[in-house]
């Protein structure tokens, strides 16, 4: 099971639909300051269910939707879709060779999830992630400037991390 594709539409600076096909091994993302690289990371976090604004570098959920630029008007919807290769059926509850999980948010409305294009409740998509070993592995996403943060944690917090992992 691996993440085959990340599709962003209307998410932060990705106003136009952008598809990133990932290697099962190492995919590198490069580019100038402010081009949108970390926005991709925010998008992946958010699609996996992150709700803490500080982890999404936003002051409100609406900040996730393209808010316009000097030449373009704002959009009213943002979406991030993660497409997993499920040929080894690691997702036990979904029996398709590819599993796409999309999270969508509209201005002044709750965000919603879609599994293979069909609406699904938040708690059900969290169950699916959990069964595939995702989501409880938020330590698997290291944000910019945060790599050494684990060392600064108090002994109790370090123990907590190991407990979460276990």
């Amino acid at each position: 099971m691996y993440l085959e594709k990340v599709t962003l539409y209307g998410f932060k600076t990705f106003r136009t639909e952008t598809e990133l096909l990932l290697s099962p091994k190492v995919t590198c993302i490069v580019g100038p300051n402010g081009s949108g690289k970390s926005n991709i990371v925010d998008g992946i976090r958010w699609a996996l269910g992150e709700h803490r604004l500080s982890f999404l570098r936003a002051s409100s959920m609406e900040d996730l939707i393209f808010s316009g630029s000097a030449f373009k008007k704002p959009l009213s919807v943002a979406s991030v879709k993660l497409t997993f290769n499920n040929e080894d059926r690691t997702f036990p509850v979904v029996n398709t060779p590819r599993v796409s999980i999309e999270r969508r948010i509209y201005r002044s409305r709750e965000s919603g999830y879609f599994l293979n294009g069909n609406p699904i409740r938040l708690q059900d998509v969290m169950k699916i992630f959990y069964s595939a070993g995702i989501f409880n592995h938020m330590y698997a996403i290291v944000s910019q400037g945060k790599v050494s943060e684990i060392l600064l944690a108090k002994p109790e917090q370090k123990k907590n991390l190991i407990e979460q992992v276990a």
Partner: protein
Amino acid sequence: AKEEFEKTLSGVEKYFAEFFRKMFKGGEASIERIFDEYDEVSGIEISVRLPGKRKQSLPLLSGGEKSLTALAFLFAIFKVKPAPFYVLDEVDAALDEENVVKFSELLSEESSFAQFVVITHNKETMQRADMLYGITMQEDGISKAVSLKLV
């Protein structure tokens, strides 16, 4: 649950020591358990000794040394409890040329077992990519992704 914790912790300690020694070409790293008054583990602390130096508390380490130590610890956790994929955003920012090579070697080795998405400005790290994307922003404030050929 307590057994699971112990099993996980000793696995992490084993790989942490191994990755640390590999990345620093020497030295030692271990995880110390801190006990409360009921003899229960209440916390854990990371303890390192860099090659040529003495054991020192973490605040004294340099920026690059902290990054490399944290990466050894993180990759140990990845090894013991694998996740389907990992996303690393500029984790090599504080590393000098020599240490970036060590990190990128670790990345290459571990990617035979796991999938990595790595954001970087560093040419050495880029060399390890099986796929490479360039993100650009035009004057219109919109991000654009371009698949780049690896040379």
